[in-house]
């Protein structure tokens, strides 16, 4: 086994490997597969509890990943947001000077979660313009 703390570099390497095999479409196909098969916990929570389910899901995962973030759920206006000040995954990749992260690493977050939430009736927006600083902003609204 490799430790779960060593997974992110292996994940980035997987995207590179897939791109070597079949260019970017091969990477996207894997992301679609992972979203459909691996994110059932987010899918179930969002379907059952709406944006409160999103809050519950990311409270757990981002805490276990030791992220630096501010998460907000405005119940009245049905808006959920994550201000990611330091993404634990991208941050660790950038810290490793011996590793070059996959060039579109952060795009997997956009595809994986959008694919779960939009079919459930949520509007999903992510700003990745600062992802080279391991920062991003996610806003999810009830349509």
């Amino acid at each position, binding site marked *: *086994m*490799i*430790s*779960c*703390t*060593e*997974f*992110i*570099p*292996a*994940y980035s*390497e*997987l995207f*590179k*490997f897939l791109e070597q*095999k079949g260019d970017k479409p091969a990477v996207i*196909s*894997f992301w679609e*597969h*992972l979203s459909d*098969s*691996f994110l059932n916990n987010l899918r179930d929570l969002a379907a059952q509890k709406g944006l409160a389910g999103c*809050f519950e899901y990311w*409270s757990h*995962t*981002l*805490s*276990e*990943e*030791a*992220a*630096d*973030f*501010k*998460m*907000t*759920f*405005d*119940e*009245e206006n049905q808006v959920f947001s994550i201000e990611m000040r*330091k993404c*634990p995954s991208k*941050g660790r990749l950038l810290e490793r000077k*011996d*590793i070059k992260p996959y060039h579109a690493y952060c795009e997997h977050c956009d595809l994986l979660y959008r694919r779960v939430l939009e079919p459930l009736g949520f509007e999903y927006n992510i700003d990745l313009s600062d992802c080279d600083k391991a920062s991003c902003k996610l806003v999810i609204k009830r349509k």
Partner: protein
Amino acid sequence: MVEKKLKVLERNSSDNQYLHKDFHGALCYAIKYLDQTYGQDATAEYLKQVGRETFSPLIAALKKEGLIALERHFKRIFELENGDAEFKREDNCLVINVSKCPAIAHLKSTGQLFTDRYCETTVNVNLAICQAAEYQCSCEYKPGIGKCVQKFWKKEDIK
């Protein structure tokens, strides 16, 4: 009238320990996907790439310090993830007898996908690390039970 709430959760990196064991599940899905889409040889190729490209600090330490570097690395992992393993160094060989693989224990206890091919991670990542540092290794496992015996030795030494 029910009061609508504003919920806020704010955390710094130092507030929590970095230990997201569900990543083991994501790796299981990756192995299954590669096996089904590109074949088992491609999966082995990918896992060796992980060993070569992402464990370069461990490869350098193994070259410089020898087997103590591997022992230190694996002891840290098993302690961090609450696994059980016995470490022995004899006749210039490091033997790790794993009685509880923490990754498999987590996947099974949480009902996540588990593929019998998961242990090929150990086989191929170890192999790539050892090849890069001019060491040799073996890993004997029975799929799914979370136990294995890993051995490491220098190329010119007798196993």
